[in-house]
């Protein structure tokens, strides 16, 4: 028989302890365990589900992130409204983030804050410049006027800075010190001063002021609320005293302030009373709460400067004119420099054999680079022509050969250096030389012309060799020279040998020219005789005459290596039955030349 037990009883048993639980197990076994589970499900099922859900919310980072993102803005708003704990907590993180961001990308940060800082900086700079101009004008006005000199003397005597003396004389009034004094104790709660003034210990001054107030009140039996409100001294100096229920505001003033200022101080004091009412109630000598009033009181250090005459100092005018003149001169020079530079650039661009690849301006210098043919004009020369300073230019050229006809011709001219009478022309790859020249240049031209880049062929048919021309003429001249001999003689006596010397001169020329053109000129000296006498004798005589001339030439330093002397007898030039004149004409030597 199966023992049935109320499920609750079974549950109770399960919590009763190990002994009763063991007893129950004994009787119900496995089925009761199952029943217990069912019962547990029935009773705590929903809670278990909720627990599981909660567990999941806690364990799942995505879910937590999503939930946190929903509540975080509200949480921050709530927290910030209560106190500054959140701000303090995230402050280091924000600072670090900003630091990292700036380190990583300065530009992004600069862009972000520029809209805020930019106008501020501009305004500050503008105001500083205006201030500088104004103070410069004021300084110049005062420095060189009679009044200014007086003030300088005063500053020197009183050992005060000149600026302070100027300021004092330019002021309608200035509040130099403000004391906020505790009425009962006379202690200074706050004290501010305008710059550049010397002052005594505020606590002691305040104490003495309070004592004097009491002294006046006691001595003249005024009523308690009546107080000394002004102390006047030294002509234009005074102390204004404004008294409130717990505090006194005392202003040390130089000059004559407007009466409205007193109302302002009244309002200021009332405001402070209102704000510090509770602090004053329990005041025990601690003045630190009043520290925050410093700026407010500093705003109360009013002053008014005499309206400066708008007259601008002549010195400022002069400075202005100098400045303007220099500016105009500078602008003029810059403009002209710019024009010269642009012209130079255009010229450089148009220059044959030069191709500009880049033109830059850095640190006040022009950096010019490009391709340049060796035959192109030197840019430095162009620069000098353009009246530009070469020290401001840096050239970087890559040399290359331009193959356009003009460049090729220019290159040929540079390389071949033709004499003035020679004209070089270049067309379709052929360099043509026309005109007249010595042989040496022509030989050089022929040797080197094909080395010029861009020249494929040459034509020198219209080029006249002047040395060759001279040689031809000399040869012709020599062949007309005929030294005459006396009848039957193979020597020419002194005084009759002009022709012989003429021949010598021409032969020397010929030999010089043959050296130049490097072609040997063969000279034949033919000896002749007239018809008188035997043939044999005449042949001998004609030979001796030719030999005589050769010896004469050799004697005068002529190289005989290409010269031959031949006796022709009477046959060659003599005629049978010749006249007297003919006979004379036959007693001679003649010259023939061969190349």
């Amino acid at each position, binding site marked *: 028989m199966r023992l049935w037990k109320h499920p609750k009883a079974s549950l109770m048993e399960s919590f009763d302890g190990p002994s009763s639980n063991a007893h129950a197990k004994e009787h119900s076994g496995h089925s009761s365990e199952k029943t217990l589970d069912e019962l547990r499900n029935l009773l705590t099922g929903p809670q278990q589900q909720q627990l599981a859900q909660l567990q999941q919310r806690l364990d799942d980072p995505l879910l937590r992130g999503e939930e946190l993102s929903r509540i975080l803005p509200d949480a921050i708003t709530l927290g910030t409204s209560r106190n500054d704990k959140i701000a303090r907590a995230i402050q280091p993180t924000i600072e670090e983030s900003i630091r990292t961001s700036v380190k990583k990308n300065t530009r992004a940060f600069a862009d972000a804050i520029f809209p805020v800082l930019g106008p501020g900086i501009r305004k500050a700079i503008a105001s500083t410049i205006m201030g500088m101009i104004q103070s410069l004008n004021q300084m110049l006005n005062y420095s060189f006027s009679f009044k200014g000199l007086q003030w300088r003397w005063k500053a020197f005597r009183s050992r005060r800075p000149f600026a302070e003396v100027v300021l004092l004389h330019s002021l309608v009034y200035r509040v130099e010190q403000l004391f906020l004094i*505790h009425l*009962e*104790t*006379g*202690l*200074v709660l706050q004290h501010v001063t305008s710059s550049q003034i010397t002052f*005594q*210990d505020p*606590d*002691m001054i305040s*104490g*003495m002021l309070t*004592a*004097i107030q*009491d*002294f006046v*009140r*006691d001595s003249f039996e005024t009523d308690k609320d009546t107080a000394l409100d002004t102390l006047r001294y030294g002509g234009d100096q005074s102390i204004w005293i404004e008294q409130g229920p717990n505090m006194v505001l005392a202003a040390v003033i130089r000059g004559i302030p407007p009466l409205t200022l007193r109302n302002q101080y009244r309002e200021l004091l009332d405001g402070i009373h209102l704000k510090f009412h509770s602090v004053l109630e329990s005041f*025990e*000598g*601690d*003045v*630190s709460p009043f520290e925050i009033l410093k700026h407010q009181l500093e705003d109360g250090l009013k002053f008014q400067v005499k309206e400066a005459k708008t007259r601008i100092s002549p010195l400022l005018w002069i400075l202005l004119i100098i400045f303007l003149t220099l500016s105009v001169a500078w602008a003029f020079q810059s403009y002209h420099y710019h024009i010269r530079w642009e012209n130079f650039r255009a010229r450089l661009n148009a220059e044959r054999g030069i191709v500009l690849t880049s033109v830059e301006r850095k640190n006040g210098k022009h950096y010019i680079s490009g391709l340049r043919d060796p035959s192109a004009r030197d840019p430095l020369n162009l620069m000098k022509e353009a009246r530009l300073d070469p020290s401001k230019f840096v050239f970087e050229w890559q040399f290359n050969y331009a193959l356009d006809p003009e460049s090729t011709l220019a290159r040929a001219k540079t390389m071949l250096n033709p004499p003035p009478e020679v004209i070089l022309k270049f067309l379709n790859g052929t360099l043509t030389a026309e005109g007249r020249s010595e042989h040496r240049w022509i030989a050089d031209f022929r040797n080197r012309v094909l080395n010029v880049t861009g020249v494929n062929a040459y034509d020198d048919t219209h080029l006249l060799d002047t040395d060759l021309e001279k040689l031809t003429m000399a040869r012709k001249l020599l062949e007309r020279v005929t030294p005459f001999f006396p009848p039957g003689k193979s020597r020419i006596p002194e005084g009759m040998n002009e022709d012989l010397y003429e021949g010598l001169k021409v032969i020397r020329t010929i030999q010089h020219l043959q050296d130049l053109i490097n072609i040997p000129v063969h000279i034949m000296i033919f000896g002749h005789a007239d018809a008188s006498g035997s043939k044999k004798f005449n042949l001998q005589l004609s030979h001796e005459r030719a030999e005589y001339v050769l010896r004469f030439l050799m004697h005068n330093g002529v190289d005989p290596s290409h010269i031959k002397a031949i006796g022709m007898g009477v046959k060659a030039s003599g005629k049978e039955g010749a006249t007297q004149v003919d006979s004379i004409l036959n007693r001679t030597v003649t010259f023939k030349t061969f190349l």
Partner: protein
Amino acid sequence: MIKKKVCMLGSFAVGKTSLVQRFVHSIFSQKYSTTVGVKIDKKTLSIREKTMDLILWDLHGKDEFQEIRMSYLRGASGCIYVVDGTRLKTLDVFRELRNKTRDYVGDVPFVVALNKWDLRREWEIGSDAMDDLEKEGAVIIKTSAKTGLCVEEVFQTLARLMVDN
């Protein structure tokens, strides 16, 4: 920063001014004391690691020609009474001043400086009188304007009393 108004009182010629002049910051001359009836000095000291400024109102000594202006006592946080040890009468003046002060500003901390200790052979104030004073709750410090004896102690003691008050 703590500031306290302290009044220095005593009979005529007990040496109030001479006692402190070497120990305080002063800008006003003695004539203020005789004309206005008070001279303000300042003593800065450190008490329990805090700076305290004592604004000393050196009140003109009471004599037959001039009464102390009680209004000067207003707002005082402490008093230094100076008694001349060689003139017993000055002790009576102290008591008189003490009572007046109490009436005007209440029970504020105070220190009695028994001055002229360097002339102790001529002293008229005996130990009995001093005991009586102590019984009245007075803190007594023997001082000497001539040697500077215990002057700093006067300020320090009063400052401590004021802080504790």
